[in-house]
């Protein structure tokens, strides 16, 4: 049979962000594939070296639109550790509330994208309509739906009144019902299962070899989650379970992410009920003493790691960012081997790509 090369990208209706695939196809199956990144590379690491620590909070937020808050959280966590600053507990709780809300919004967004890629637009509509509840909560809290700008070095700059808290709790009740319905769809809907099961398989050994993180790793049986394994406060006072599945296909990843969404709603409710009183931020010096720090945290897609080196001034000497999507991208050629052309869109969606994160 003839081999044809099918290019997907950099501009393609399947892709939400630009990246270039070259798929070598024989008949209907993909034989091999290559991947090219860098179309959204903005040089953020270099830009960080030319701006002060305070300016960098907002620069780093723009690495990604979907997981913006977790980037600023990890960055501020690192700088606060360099300063030896202790963030007040109320500030940490509010920061975590937004982290979990962002996790819910990211997974619902992703469910819609997967649904579009398998041709089931109704789930896309339902998921994004339910995502509006989360975006409204975040807008009421921070003033922005997507760019929250909530973190400062030393804490957060928002606060909650009692009645605002009760409003959010009632919106979370509504969200609970909707997310439970979506989880039911993932677990029982036959057409979704038929299109996503046994596609894009990754074994546990593959996951360990390629150092994969996040829901993709958890769907292949690797039981790791930084929120539980090295809990920063307040995660050490909250109870939640980490869903793990053994199948390693796209359906397993869908299931893991929906279960994580359910857990995140539970976590938000716990955070709001246990919210302590007190200040929300500590005052931070602008000049950071010389040193290095490695800051990690659990983004919706996995482990985010920041390395920050300071030379004693108010401008960082080096900021290195590694986002979790990069680890999933390494596995894509393995996943795409032997896959039918019609299932390529499912595999690409199953990995939850965020190319803006990967390119920085």
């Amino acid at each position: 049979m003839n081999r044809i090369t099918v290019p997907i990208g950099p501009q393609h209706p399947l892709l939400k962000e630009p990246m270039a695939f070259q798929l070598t196809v024989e008949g209907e199956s993909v034989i091999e594939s290559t991947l090219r990144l860098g179309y959204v590379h903005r040089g953020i690491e270099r830009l960080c070296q030319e701006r002060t620590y305070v300016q960098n909070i907002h620069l780093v937020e723009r690495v990604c639109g979907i997981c913006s808050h977790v980037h600023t959280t990890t960055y501020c966590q690192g700088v606060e550790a360099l300063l030896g600053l202790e963030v007040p507990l109320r500030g940490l709780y509010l920061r975590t509330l937004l982290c979990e809300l962002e996790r819910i919004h990211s997974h619902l967004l992703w469910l819609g994208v997967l649904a579009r890629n398998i041709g089931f637009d109704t789930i896309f509509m339902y998921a994004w309509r339910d995502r509006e509840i989360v975006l409204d909560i975040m807008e009421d809290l921070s003033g922005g739906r997507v760019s929250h700008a909530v973190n400062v070095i030393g804490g957060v700059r928002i606060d909650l009144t009692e009645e605002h808290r009760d409003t959010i709790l009632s919106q979370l009740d509504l969200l609970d019902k909707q997310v439970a319905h979506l989880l039911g769809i993932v677990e029982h809907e036959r057409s979704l299962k038929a299109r996503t099961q046994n596609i894009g398989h990754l074994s546990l050994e593959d996951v360990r070899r390629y150092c994969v993180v996040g829901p993709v790793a958890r769907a292949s049986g690797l039981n790791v989650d930084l929120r539980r394994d090295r809990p920063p406060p307040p995660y050490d006072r909250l109870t939640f379970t980490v869903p793990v599945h053994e199948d390693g296909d796209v359906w397993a990843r869908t299931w893991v992410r929906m279960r994580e969404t359910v857990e995140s709603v539970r976590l938000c409710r716990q955070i709001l009920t246990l919210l302590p009183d007190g200040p929300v931020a500590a005052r931070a010096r602008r000049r950071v003493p010389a040193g290095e720090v490695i800051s990690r945290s659990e983004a919706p897609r996995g482990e985010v790691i920041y390395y920050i080196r300071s030379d004693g001034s108010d401008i960082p000497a080096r900021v290195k960012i590694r986002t979790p999507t990069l680890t999933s991208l390494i596995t894509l050629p393995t996943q795409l081997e032997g896959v039918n052309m019609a299932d390529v869109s499912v595999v690409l969606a199953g990995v939850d790509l965020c190319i803006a994160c990967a390119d920085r």
Partner: protein
Amino acid sequence: MSNVKFNLEALLAAWQRAFPKLKLTMETLPLDEVVVAFPPEYLVPAVCVLTEQFNVRHLSTITGDDTGEGIALLYHFWSGSGLTLRTRLPYDALHIPSLTGIIPGAVFYEREAAEMLGVIFEGHPAPQPLLMPDDWEGEHPLRASAEDR
């Protein structure tokens, strides 16, 4: 990735046994991270000890840093808690063996360090640029000497 915390004393002892002439230095960074420094020629054997004897195989990333006194490479690992191996390459000898034979997940990180700082990873299967354009002809972007554009 694994939750099993590595035994730091046993690890340092194993490294000392494997490299008896080496004087190991260890520092602790904030947020509970440990950094151990190695000369460039000992780094890949040290990683071998880590993966074979202690089963620490999750490489989070490889950071390249132009410190002004050479290019520092930091290999960040995670197993229950964070461990980093640091080495420094002099400007006139910017090459180090690639880790991809031991940890295949290092491919992208080494490509990025190569294009951003000009480090050569010997034995890398596909050393093309990862993020920079194919026709980039200027300096390596993260070098201190690179101009602002």
